[in-house]
């Protein structure tokens, strides 16, 4: 028996209409290659990848077209073979309606792969395995697109207690993980085996909502097989109660392990790491087949004649994909993601990207406009519904008043934007809109502050440098004038010499010696502005002093006492 015996509960949550049956009736179909692929370079959290191709170049399927920019970044690849027709700004699948750099590829229909080689992660160092996954473009496919190689780090302890595979898929309409688990459970488990080894994890808990019996059954069979190979009961499938948002990482971890990750902390610190089942599948494909991430399963649902899951190449325009599902005539919008957490697209020609788990076709009938917002009556319903144990009305209040510091004190950044609070609010306040607004303001400020700090440091450094240069110049000038004066004095002394008696000469020599002593003594005393120097400055000062001494040495033979 691989099923988990004991489960825990998370607080809050809601039960929206699930609407999942429509898209699970048919198996996964492969979406046809479109006439033009528009592949955004920036598809993950972290730095935007640098383009590796130019217009006119021929690319192969799986060829890297964008290179990870630093470690917190992830590569992108050509989804099929063809010719790069442009590297240019194109409309992004993003609420902002802004454009970003994309590689536009005209497929040649040959689907010619790059040479594919499995990666022997067992004999490679963990760092090399992570680099491989970064260059294979593997990112979290649950929707957050966080680079997976960064999460596949066992951290300080060097091992993990529990690896959680997230197959809960709690958001209405979306079934891409469900069908993937039904149809390709062995591959998901193979990915889990790799991740477990990379993380030195103890057990692997696979959480699936109990409204997906077919997926649970399929995964249990695959898990049993893996347990036989492992010789121990490490892969366990947990059927978790269906309640939105059971698929939230912290919520699922809590249900499966009972571990409550406190506000502002990460699950890794508690020995748990959570990955989406689709990510496990992608890791298997990358490591064992040598295939970088170039496609994913996407649910097309909502206002369509035939909802279905497709395996879609990244860069496929959403309208081409939606056209396969007979959208109804009154459709007026596309939403990437589900109705609770999804984002409205600025147009229907935006491409499918790594974050696209679902393309939801909407209409005014299906999603009527929200009723007008009313004042908050502080009924506390939102707090009861919040699965992250937050106080939404307080966060709302301070976000609305733009008192961001206070909003943060109420753990605004622990809000997962699940929308439960807005769903239950009797005053129909679009609470999440306020949180998104406040979060992006706070982030913008953080960035601004960081830039200001850099500018301050650079300015102070410049002042220091200018001061040092001034000192140097002054020192040089002083040395020059001193030398000049000494020379003039010498000439004068030469002229005066014959008049002096030998006696006077001796006297003068004595005086000169005394003067010289006094001078060197004086030179040894530090001037005020050279107190508290840095070692570099000190070194420079010493060098200048040395030069001065040299000049003095040179001037000495001619030195006469009437200086």
């Amino acid at each position: 028996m691989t099923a988990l015996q004991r489960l825990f509960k998370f607080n809050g949550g809601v039960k929206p209409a699930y609407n999942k049956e429509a898209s699970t009736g048919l198996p996964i179909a492969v979406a046809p290659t479109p006439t033009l692929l528009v592949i955004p370079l920036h598809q993950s959290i972290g730095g935007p990848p640098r383009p590796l191709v130019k217009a006119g170049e021929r690319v192969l399927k799986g060829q890297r077209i964008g290179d990870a920019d630093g470690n917190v970044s992830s590569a992108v690849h050509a989804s099929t073979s063809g010719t790069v027709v442009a590297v240019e700004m194109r409309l992004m699948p993003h609420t902002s309606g802004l454009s970003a750099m994309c590689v536009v590829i005209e497929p040649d229909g040959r689907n010619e792969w790059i040479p594919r080689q499995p990666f022997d992660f067992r004999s490679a160092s963990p760092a090399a395995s992570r680099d491989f996954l970064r260059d294979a473009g593997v990112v979290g496919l649950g929707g957050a697109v966080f680079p997976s190689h960064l999460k596949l780090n066992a951290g300080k302890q060097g091992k993990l207690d529990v690896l959680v595979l997230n197959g809960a898929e709690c958001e209405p309409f979306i079934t891409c993980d469900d069908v993937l688990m039904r149809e390709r459970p062995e591959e998901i488990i193979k990915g889990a085996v790799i991740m477990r080894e990379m993380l030195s994890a103890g057990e692997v808990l696979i959480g699936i909502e109990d409204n997906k019996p077919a997926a649970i059954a399929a995964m249990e069979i695959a898990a049993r097989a893996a347990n036989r190979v492992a010789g121990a009961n490490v892969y366990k499938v947990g059927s978790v109660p269906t309640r939105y948002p059971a698929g939230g990482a912290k919520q699922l971890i809590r249900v499966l392990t009972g571990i409550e990750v406190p506000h502002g902390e990460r699950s890794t610190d508690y020995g748990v790491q959570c990955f989406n089942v689709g990510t496990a599948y992608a890791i298997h494909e990358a490591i064992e087949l040598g295939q970088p991430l170039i496609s994913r399963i996407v649910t097309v649902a909502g206002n369509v004649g035939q909802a279905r899951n497709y395996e879609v190449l990244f860069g496929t325009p959403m309208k081409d994909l939606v056209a396969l599902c007979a959208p109804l005539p009154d459709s007026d919008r596309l939403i990437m993601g589900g109705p609770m957490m999804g984002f409205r697209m600025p147009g229907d020609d935006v491409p499918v990207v790594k974050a696209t788990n679902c393309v939801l076709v909407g209409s005014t009938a299906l999603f009527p406009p929200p009723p007008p917002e009313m004042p908050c009556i502080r009924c506390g319903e939102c707090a009861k519904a919040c699965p992250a144990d937050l106080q939404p009305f307080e966060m709302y209040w301070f976000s609305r008043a733009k008192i961001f510091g206070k909003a943060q004190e109420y753990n605004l950044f622990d809000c997962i934007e699940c929308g439960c609070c807005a769903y239950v609010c009797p005053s129909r306040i679009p609470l999440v809109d306020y949180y998104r607004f406040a979060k992006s303001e706070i982030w913008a400020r953080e960035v601004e502050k960081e830039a200001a700090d850099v500018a301050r440091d650079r300015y102070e450094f410049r002042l220091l440098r200018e001061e040092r240069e001034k000192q140097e110049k002054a020192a040089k000038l002083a040395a020059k004038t001193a030398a000049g004066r000494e020379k003039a004095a010498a000439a004068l002394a030469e002229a005066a010499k014959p008049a002096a008696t030998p006696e006077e000469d001796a006297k003068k020599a004595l005086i000169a010696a005394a003067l010289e002593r006094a001078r060197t003594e004086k030179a040894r005393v530090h001037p005020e502005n050279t107190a508290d120097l840095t070692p570099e400055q000190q070194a420079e000062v010493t060098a200048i002093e040395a030069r001065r001494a040299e000049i003095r040495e040179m001037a000495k033979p001619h030195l006469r006492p009437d200086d």
Partner: protein
Amino acid sequence: MLEALLVMALGAVVLGAALGYAAVRFRVEGDPLVEKIDAILPQTQCGQCGFPGCKPYATAIAKGEAEINQCPPGGEEGIHKLADLLGREFKPLSAEHGIEKPKSVAVIDEQACIGCTLCIQACPVDAIVGAAKQMHTIVAKQCTGCELCLPPCPVDCISMQPIGESVESWKWKYPVFKINPTQREAA
């Protein structure tokens, strides 16, 4: 979406560590009030306030020798923050010191640049690189948009370009709600 949390937490930790390091590494002993005021000022180092930089202006404010509304890059928001910090009355930005402009960076027309190094000497944050008689260029990331490099350029090849919004820097707007049905239709 949910993993966004992780990312944010990670970001906070990294930024915190960096700032903490900077705070120790670049600590300048000084008047805590001046430091606090300086922390609010935008560090553009443009001199529009009438002082040779943000720190001197901060010092003057702390001594009560300057008004709090002389910094155009800081804008209304900066004045509000200063007013809060110092318990002074808010005043609109003083027009004689300048107007609030969208944040920009200087860009050198590299074809026209004669490599005179005058701009390098003017830049308060050393954001311009180039050697004598060589083409110069501006490191956009370090440019504060102070415009101090514009006047010295003998061939007027430097221009200010506003920083556009990108997908990464885009911000969610303050939720606005339609009051009546007509407006709702329009929106």
